[in-house]
């Protein structure tokens, strides 16, 4: 379920330069913000399966209720603007939501939890490919107040719940980048949306690389069991969107995972050359943070050889 093939010209190749340094690298978001890939239905089914199997892929503080409703309405409205067969009608606090593609039809009253079958965040989170995080803004800081995250990349939502933005990024090299990013997010006007790309390499096509699931993927990753680099090793691009929610000023953080096998990277010579260059020049601390000590050189060598 990689969500992308070599022929997918819309793949958001994440590297803009021949060298990579950790940076905020944000840019204004452009529509569509919410991705609908060829395997949309499979992705949504997988998201629900993971959530239902492990309820702690969803967290919400009691004080996140308003921001969660804010996020719900923003997401549904966004889907209605961007996607076919989807509509959101409003009459005062009363909404009617129709998602014909998924066969979902729901009337609800804003702020009234009893009018939805589940929490507003999981109701929305099951209908988008992106993981959904709500960062509440308090005391000039952002706090992880709520989220539905099933495709985390080596972190755990349940552990990170309640952390400040700075605490969340504690393990990242160059944390000062995130101090600036937080200041930027807190200055965002309501309704603003920004995009940034993050990337990594992995030796399978699992979108769920959460710590919660690490017993399932960790052992193979540690043994670096790779038989066919081109088809097994994947470039993992995270398309992240940051939205200042209009009513509460909370920041909605969306993370979409797009996987591309190295063979498909190799099919685009410019991408291949850039990834090789980035991997060859990666600073040591970034290399170890992204766990690319062995996988990085392995991928670079394979890409180099595939062009000989």
């Amino acid at each position, binding site marked *: 379920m990689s969500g992308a093939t070599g022929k997918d010209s819309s793949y958001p190749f994440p590297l803009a330069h021949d060298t990579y340094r950790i940076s905020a*690298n944000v*840019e*204004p978001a452009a529509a569509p913000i919410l991705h609908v890939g060829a395997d949309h239905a499979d992705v949504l089914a997988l998201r629900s399966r993971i959530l239902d199997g492990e309820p702690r892929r969803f967290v919400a503080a009691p004080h996140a209720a308003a921001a969660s409703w804010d996020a719900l*309405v923003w997401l549904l409205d966004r889907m209605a603007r961007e996607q076919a067969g989807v509509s959101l009608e409003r009459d005062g606090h009363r909404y009617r939501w129709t998602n014909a593609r998924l066969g979902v039809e729901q009337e609800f009253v804003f*702020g009234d939890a009893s009018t939805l079958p589940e929490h507003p965040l999981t109701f929305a989170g099951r209908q988008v490919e992106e993981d959904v995080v709500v960062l509440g803004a308090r005391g*000039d800081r952002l706090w992880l107040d709520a989220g539905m995250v099933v495709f985390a990349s080596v972190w755990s939502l349940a552990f990170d719940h309640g952390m400040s933005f700075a605490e969340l990024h504690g393990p990242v090299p160059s944390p000062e980048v995130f101090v600036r990013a937080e200041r*930027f997010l807190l200055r965002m*006007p309501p309704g603003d949306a*920004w995009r940034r790309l993050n990337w990594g390499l992995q030796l399978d096509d699992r979108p769920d690389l959460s710590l919660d699931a690490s017993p399932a993927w960790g052992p193979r990753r540690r043994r670096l069991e790779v038989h066919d680099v081109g088809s097994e090793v994947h470039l993992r691009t995270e398309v992240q969107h940051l939205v200042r929610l209009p*009513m509460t000023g909370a920041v909605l953080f969306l993370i979409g995972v797009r996987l591309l096998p190295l063979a498909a990277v190799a099919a685009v010579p410019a991408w291949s050359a850039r990834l090789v260059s980035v991997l060859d020049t990666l600073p040591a601390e970034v290399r170890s943070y992204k766990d690319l000590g062995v996988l990085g050189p392995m991928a670079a060598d394979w890409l180099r050889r595939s062009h000989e």
Partner: protein
Amino acid sequence: MHDLRPGDRVRARSPRSSFTPVETAAHHILVAGGVGVTPLLSHARWHAFWGHSFEVLAVGAPHLDVLRALGPVTVARDRRKMADLLGPVVGTAPWKSHVYTCGPPGLIAAVAAAARAAHWVGARVHAEPFVAEPAGGPFEVVLRRSRRRVRVAAGETLLDAVDRVGVAAPRLCRQGVCGECLTGLVGGTADHRDHVDAAEEGRIALCVSRAAPGETLEIDL
């Protein structure tokens, strides 16, 4: 944003992150002076909608009947009476309270003083900041490598001006945050408005920074 009601779509010009209700509060004290009542009216509607505990202290404020329909309102006849009112209200506020003031600077200062006297930490005290848009007068810039002299108009950014004459410059955020557009500053004194400390590296953020009044800049572009 002033008539914000839950469920409304809004588009505001400037962020007011420090003046949105703090959702973790157990009790909200809204202090309104004069027309400063307007943003607090939307706070009161918000709290009434969600069933939050709140109270309003008003001095010389209109719309009192609207407020009274939403929750408890105490009116002070003048500023001095307001000062008398603040001490007891702030001093006996339940655990997890926050206070929000919108009004003239004197009122904001009086509330801050009352909160300090009751040993509140600053993070529980909020005031509507009246930030004026920083002025952006015209100036000239010399592009050293392209050997051009460009006039940056008032209200135009340095980045816009460079674009206008067709000189390539990198950029991403256009908000002085990402650092992508930083360019060497070779001459002139800049009015730095970025958040990435460009000045310390002898560079300038083309997207937000300008020349200091009367200065002409020379940049490495």
